[in-house]
């Protein structure tokens, strides 16, 4: 082979591929070689193996069969590798797979792309079924451009953590050559070392396509040491459009997850103290004083130091279990509300305080009572159900654009007056299930012009918000039984709406990929939260009203600062669309449930998943924390209400940061009679209300 010819070929190849640095190096080398008259001992050009290798470049530059060939080689190599490394290597396989497919499509080899996809899709179905379903339809280069998901995939790199040993492994097996290594900053030292290895492997197979893809699409984060275990799954699984680094940066931001300074719980604590001191419990007083001293110190700090304090507290608290709840509440840092919150009428305040005092303490040993509201004769038309804070009102949004509200207290009275002799007067609400009167048993709210997807009661139960496919949100008064305001702003169906825990403000989420903050007195949104890559399916307020959380079809949950409108957290880990969210009453945690039945519990401060909760077999429609935060209830399409112990898991997390073992415990599964559970609501006294529509088909 002619020496110059080869040099020229290499040079043009590098130029064509845009590897200017490598090209310059080559040019310099050639210059040097020329001047020094071929004194270079490692002569690439005289090496027959190497020249053969380069030749194959040009021959099969675009050969679609090569993708299939090389991918299957890489796959079999991965599967046959040591178990120790296999796990990490498998993560490399998926991005390589989808990029191979997209490359094939982009180059117009539709038929080959389809065969390739069908050959290997089974490998990834378990982890990435939704993505694969999306990609499957892509059949022309124009689709790639059009489809946002594919587009974002092709324009961003995938971050994969990989240990150093594996990195070497992978690249040596892929026949690392010089220009690739040069591109990778991590491996400068590896370059000299691996040259021998490279030559050794060169004669085997030439997986240039794979190499190209890995180099182009994947950003390896090489970490020293042994391959890590499955724990870091979450970050690897989701290929999201936005830059991973950006997401990490966002998650560095500070989140003030503490409770509001002047909350009712706070006040209850004080009043509770007075009543306690009446009982002459000196010890309690001391403890309270202690806490008061600590509080200002804690208020300033965030994060780890508080965690530690909390841990200490928890140990202390075990001794005096009766005051456990007060302790956990008081340790949470206090924050000032960013929004001007409405003032609560005193009588309401009093009643709430009364409720809080009479609250049943729930724990793994003391499970709540569950009152279930079953919608019957819905004819598959019930889209959502909502229960007011005290459980006295139940709203259902229907696909025939109507919103119906039942007053459970009235329902009970009717039964008493019509049916029985009135002997049940002392048990007003739940015990009596009587036939409805001749008249309609509900209040009908008509006004929407599309299916009603969500309804939310104001904290006091005097207003209802409903969101609909007609892109509007409507505010109804339960006192006047009339529509008050129609909020227009979204451009697409509004999937979810929720009142602020203090009332007055509310948040909505829509198919238009935004979440919006509104106040009752303005018909324009106050904030628009944009950033999700797909529909925003659900929205929940943080307990301190400064944040909202949104769950989306892009499989992420985001936390937004209400005052600035910025995204402050991205929670990555779900494998399918997020359907439900719940915020813990202490503000530290958030739970999210997805389409597959997985529930994840997140630590807001760190942005990491505390633990996934497996158990449901179908969509998790609703989640609710008990009032003191010790239990999480979840309602699902598999016709069960599950109760999860939240305290044990968080304690485990604090004491021993073991990964994998700290899954939350499922305490109890309450099966319903073929009734999917649409909505759950803990009353202030910790009675759990659940609602669902009886579906006879199952």
């Amino acid at each position: 082979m002619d020496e110059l010819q080869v040099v020229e070929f290499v040079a043009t190849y590098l130029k064509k591929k845009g590897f200017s640095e490598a090209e310059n190096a080559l040019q310099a080398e050639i210059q040097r070689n020329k001047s020094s008259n071929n004194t270079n001992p490692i002569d690439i050009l005289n090496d027959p193996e190497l020249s053969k290798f380069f030749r194959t470049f040009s021959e099969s530059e675009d050969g679609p069969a090569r993708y299939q060939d090389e991918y299957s080689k890489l796959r079999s190599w991965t599967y046959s590798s040591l178990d120790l490394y296999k796990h990490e290597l498998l993560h490399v396989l998926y991005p390589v797979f989808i990029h191979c497919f997209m490359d094939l499509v982009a180059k117009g080899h539709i038929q080959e792309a389809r065969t390739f996809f069908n050959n290997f899709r089974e490998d990834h179905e378990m982890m990435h079924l939704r993505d694969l379903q999306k990609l499957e339809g892509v059949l022309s280069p124009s689709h790639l451009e059009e489809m946002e998901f594919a587009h974002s995939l092709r324009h961003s790199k995938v971050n994969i953590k990989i240990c150093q040993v594996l990195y070497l492994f992978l690249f040596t097996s892929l026949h690392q050559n010089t220009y690739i290594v040069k591109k990778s900053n991590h491996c400068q030292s590896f370059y000299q070392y691996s040259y021998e290895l490279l030559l050794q492997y060169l004669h085997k197979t030439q997986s240039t396509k794979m190499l190209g893809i890995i180099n182009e699409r994947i950003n390896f984060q090489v970490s020293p040491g042994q391959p890590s275990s499955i724990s870091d799954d979450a970050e690897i699984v989701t290929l999201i459009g936005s830059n991973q680094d950006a997401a990490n940066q966002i998650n560095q931001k500070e989140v003030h997850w503490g409770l509001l300074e002047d909350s009712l719980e706070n006040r209850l604590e004080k009043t509770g103290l007075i009543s306690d001191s009446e009982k002459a419990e000196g010890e309690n007083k001391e403890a309270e004083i202690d806490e008061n001293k600590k509080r200002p110190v804690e208020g300033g700090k965030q994060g780890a130091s508080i965690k530690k304090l909390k841990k200490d507290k928890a140990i202390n608290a075990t001794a005096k279990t009766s005051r456990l709840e007060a302790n956990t509440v008081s340790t949470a840092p206090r924050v000032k509300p960013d929004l001007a919150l409405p003032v609560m009428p005193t009588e309401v305040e009093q009643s709430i305080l009364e409720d809080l005092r009479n609250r049943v303490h729930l724990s793994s040993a003391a499970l709540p009572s569950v009152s279930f509201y079953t919608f019957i004769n819905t004819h598959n038309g019930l889209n959502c159900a909502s229960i007011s804070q005290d459980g006295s009102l139940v709203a259902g949004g229907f696909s025939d654009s109507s919103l119906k509200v039942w007053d459970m207290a009235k329902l009970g009275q009717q039964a008493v007056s019509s049916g029985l002799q009135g002997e049940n007067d002392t048990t007003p609400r739940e015990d009596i299930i009587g036939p409805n009167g001749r008249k309609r048993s509900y209040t009908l709210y008509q006004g929407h012009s599309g299916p009603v997807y969500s309804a939310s009661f104001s904290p006091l139960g005097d207003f209802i918000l409903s969101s609909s496919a007609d892109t509007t949100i409507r505010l109804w008064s339960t006192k006047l039984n009339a529509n008050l305001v129609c909020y227009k702003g979204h451009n697409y169906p509004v999937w979810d709406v929720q009142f602020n825990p203090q009332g007055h403000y509310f948040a909505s989420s829509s198919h238009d990929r935004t979440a919006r903050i509104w106040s009752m007195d303005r018909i324009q949104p106050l904030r628009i939260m944009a950033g999700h890559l797909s529909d925003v399916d659900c929205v929940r307020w943080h307990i301190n009203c400064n944040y909202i959380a949104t769950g989306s079809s892009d499989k992420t949950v985001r936390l937004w600062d209400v005052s600035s409108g910025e995204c402050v957290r991205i929670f990555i880990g779900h494998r399918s669309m997020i359907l439900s969210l719940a915020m813990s009453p202490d503000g530290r945690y958030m739970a999210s449930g997805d389409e597959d039945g997985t529930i994840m519990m997140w630590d807001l401060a760190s942005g990491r998943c505390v633990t996934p909760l497996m158990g449901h077999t179908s969509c998790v429609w609703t989640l609710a924390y008990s009032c003191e935060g010790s239990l999480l209830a979840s309602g699902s399409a598999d016709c069960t209400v599950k109760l999860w112990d939240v305290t044990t898991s968080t304690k485990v997390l604090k004491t021993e940061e073991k990964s994998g073992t700290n899954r939350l415990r499922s305490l109890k599964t309450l099966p319903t009679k073929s009734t999917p559970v649409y909505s759950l609501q803990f009353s202030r006294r910790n009675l759990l209300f659940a609602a669902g529509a009886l579906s006879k088909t199952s």
Partner: protein
Amino acid sequence: MSIVPKETVEVIAQSIGISNFSTDAALALAPDVEYRIREIMQEAIKCMRHSRRTTLTTDDVDEALKLRNVEPVYGFASGGPLRFRRAIGYRDLFYLDDKDVEFKDVIEAPLPRAPLDTSIVCHWLAIEGVQPVIPENAPVQAIAAPSNGTNNEQKDGLPVEIKLPVKHILSRELQLYFDKITELAVSRSDSVLFKQALVSLATDSGLHPLVPYFTYFVADEVSRGLNNYSLLFALMRVVWNLLQNPHIQIEPYLHQLMPSVVTCLVAKRLGNRLADNHWELRDFTAKLVAAICKRYGHVYNTLQTRLTKTLLNALLDPKRALTQHYGAVQGLAALGPNVVRLLLLPNLGPYLSLLEPEMLLEKQKNEVKRHEAWRVYGALLQAAGQCIYDRLKIFPPLSSLPARSVWKTNGIVATLSNKRKTSMDLEEQPPLKKIATDGPVDAVSTSSMPTPMEEDATAATPLDNSDADHPSPSSVQIPPDSGSESRSKRDKGDSQAQKLSAILPQVWKDDLNSGKLLVSLFELFGEGILSFIPAPEMSLFL
């Protein structure tokens, strides 16, 4: 390459009036059609999720089309699945079977009933974490099913705490029912209501959850109320009726139930008044015990042995009261003739020798005691008689055999004459009959001294054995219910007993054991036992 073939695209093009549609265009459009369809379906799935459903409907597709600003496809309701039919002559061409509907028919059709309006019912899904057993909740089986789920979790290696069910929930209705029944049993056991309650216990299907409570109730009340005759009787009737209920699995509770039942059988005192007919209670309980043994003997194979042991101990202990003896005898008797034969009869002699003095006026001055002794004697007599009657009954099939067929077996029978259950030899019939007819005449002389005669009989039996006589003449029917029959014939039997005794040995020649048995019984009871000889035999002797 696309799942939409180009032909489909061409057909669609034709249907909207594009005639000159090139194949290339169709080929290019096909993948795009697939892409759009997938896109719409993915949107439709989103709509489905937001409608809180897990099945996709045409409404969802319409919503998805609206999201894309596309006109929805009209005319498809979500009522049922679409029915496609195959076009005749084509293998892979399908069409929707859309019937033509006459406007007139539609207009004239009566209005369908308005669908029921949506409403809400409310119930307790759980009370402090425990699901009440009410119709609104999933049935118990469904509750048991998720336990598999926890097992599955265990496979994952998760630390799952499995709690055993510790609480047994009774619905309010059942609790009321139980309270009512127990109240009736305790206080008003003679009322009509209690009888109805017993019927309900024997027939109602939903009582199984109450069985442990009833068991406990019975055990508790029996141990406390031994002096209260009517209560005890009521309790036993409760047990009896529970036992009759086909929907109840009572086996697991038998071990708790049996002691109280046996107590009612062999207790020293049942009831505190003389008027209390505790004999009747003992008889009833004996029947109850027998019924339990019969039904669950195969499940608990130690049940009967333990029971008989208890009863026999009670009987053979001379220190026990006669009432206890009576109960034991009745219990054993109720367990069947085999038990009597194996356990009771061997002990009969010694026992009667003990019992004899008690029965005699001169030896036992206490009238009550004497009465009791006579009772025991009567029970023993009946048990033994039942036993002997049963032995006799072994032969009825033969009696029904047509005479001729038996004649044929003559030769064989003659050779096998010594064996039990050998066919009777009808050759002997005429002489037998003759004897029978002669019987009374012969017997007259022996009337005064049964005992020596008995000895004669025993001596004669083995000798006569070879003759293989059979007592049951084929011409006579054996009454199905021998007890009543024999009793009805009692007078006759009594009067003729003395005469009969002489012939008796001959009657049992065919069966050495039976014969001996009867002889020994006769020795012990005298003519009393003869009343248990079935009528045909009686008639034989007459």
